[in-house]
């Protein structure tokens, strides 16, 4: 099977950005905390990983792990600082953070300055250099792990607390939920995943530049997340695939990518606010009722019971 390099590159990028979009889904989709600076955390992860492997000879796995942790810690700090802000103000402060991070990357030589960092090594596992398809497999493995993490968050009490905060902060507080703690946690989980995606990106592209993590990249991630459905795991991947593939298929879109992302976000907000695979999206509801119908046909004797279970959206 000859998967050519072009396809492999595209597949890898889709997977890498899907992880960042998944992170945004946790922060924004689950917990309702706006983060318009997700690209900054991809950058923090990428730079951490690049510097660790290049300058300190750290093995890939360690660099990956530390990128995740460092982005998470910085996300945690940003969360702590911006905890008092809501909606628009939070949005603006995260945009500001994005610009600050890019500025720091641009003006400090350790981050490669205006020429960027080049020659980032490809990961070597058991003496086997990961490139091409094997790297793509690694990327999707990481997406799988990230999905498990997010899925586990959703089925634990954290997920319920996130949902409650997203719906109504004051009511959530009055039910004993420590809103501050969960907001910070939501930030940390989301930015941690962005860092992970950044690390994978650095070792994939082998050269990174401050521009790669500009605010426009954040918009791209948001459009992926919104299109796929902000409260969906698989939606992050679907959104990432569509946003990455459309400009490849329709070439002229490449020239006006930023406009394309913005228009995409607006269209999604107007016509499909739940995204493609969001839990309350049209498609999900259709699929749901299809499954319920199949079960109902399968065991007609217990229709009452099935109806109750089927209607339970939890």
């Amino acid at each position, binding site marked *: 099977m000859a998967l050519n390099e072009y396809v492999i590159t595209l597949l890898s990028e889709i997977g890498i950005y899907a992880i960042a979009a998944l992170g945004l889904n946790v922060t924004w989709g689950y917990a309702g905390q706006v983060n318009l600076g997700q690209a900054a955390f991809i950058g923090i992860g990428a730079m951490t990983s690049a510097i660790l492997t290049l300058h300190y000879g750290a093995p890939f796995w360690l660099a990956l792990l530390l990128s995740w942790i460092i982005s998470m810690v910085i996300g945690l700090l940003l969360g702590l600082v911006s905890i008092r802000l809501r909606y628009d103000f939070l949005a603006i402060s995260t945009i500001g953070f994005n610009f600050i991070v890019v500025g720091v990357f641009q003006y400090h030589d350790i981050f490669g300055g205006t020429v960027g960092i080049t020659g980032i090594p490809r990961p070597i596992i058991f003496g086997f250099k990961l490139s091409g398809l094997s790297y793509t497999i690694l990327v999707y493995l990481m997406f799988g792990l990230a999905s498990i993490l997010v899925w586990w968050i959703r089925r634990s009490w954290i997920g319920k607390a996130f*949902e409650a905060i997203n719906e109504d902060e004051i009511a959530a507080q*009055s039910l004993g939920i420590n809103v501050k703690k969960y907001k910070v946690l939501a930030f940390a989980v989301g930015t941690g995943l962005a860092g992970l995606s950044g690390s994978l990106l650095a070792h994939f592209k082998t050269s990174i530049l401050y521009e790669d993590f500009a605010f426009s990249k954040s918009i791209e991630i948001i459009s992926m997340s919104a299109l796929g459905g902000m409260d969906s795991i698989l939606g992050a991947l679907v959104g990432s695939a569509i946003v990455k593939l459309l400009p490849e298929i329709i070439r002229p879109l490449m020239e006006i990518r930023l406009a394309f992302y913005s228009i995409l976000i607006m269209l999604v907000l107007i016509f499909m606010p739940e995204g493609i695979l969001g839990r309350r999206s049209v498609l999900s509801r259709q699929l749901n009722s299809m499954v319920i119908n199949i079960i109902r046909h399968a065991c007609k004797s217990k229709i009452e019971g099935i109806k109750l279970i089927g209607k339970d959206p939890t």
Partner: protein
Amino acid sequence: MEKILLKTVNLTKDFGGIKAVDEVNIEVYKGELLGIIGPNGAGKTTLLNLITGILKPTKGKIIFNEREIQGMSPSAIARMGIARTFQIVRPFKRLSVFENVLIACGYRDYQGFSFIKKWKNDIYIKKAESLIRKLGLEDYMYTPAENLPLGYLKRLEIARALALDPKLLLLDEVTSGLSKGESEEIKYIVKELKKQGISIIFVEHNVPLTAELSDRIYVLNFGRVIAEGRPEEVIRDKKVIEAYLGEEYAA
């Protein structure tokens, strides 16, 4: 003498020169149903917001179970056993009735690191279901809260508050906006809760209803307590009639 559960000492809330709550001293005894009445803008809801920590007092103390709770976070106060409903209902709109109550059942797990536990836990599910049944919401178990009429939302809020196993329940105008029939149902529920020994602060507009339910009543006006005592005494109080109907009626 019964034991004091909650006490405020010179509680004051200043909104830029306007004292919404002004040197208020109230006491709630264990097992008591305390009514708080007063005209619009008397400071009733502000008082509840102060007790539940949503607002920080400018001055004064709130003592619950012999601990000072002013300055504590709303979530910590809720976990100590003060639950409330809201005058303007605040359900988790997109979640079902069941999930709304379930979230409240998990309050213990929001502490420390036990939040990593699975939420689909039999104990909580049973508890949520029994509360929903108790409040007569079982037909709407899996309906998103946004699709419920107001009367049911008020009951949902009571169910949610009860899920916290409260020692003190604050009901903020639970009958406002409801039909007569719905108010009757709420009245019945409140009586039931009182029988179970839950201390309740019942904040209301509706004077006859409050008088009927309460053991004692405080009357607030312009942020101050203007009368206090047994319902039948309070509603005959000259100052109270003045506050509600104007001076000419009091004479």
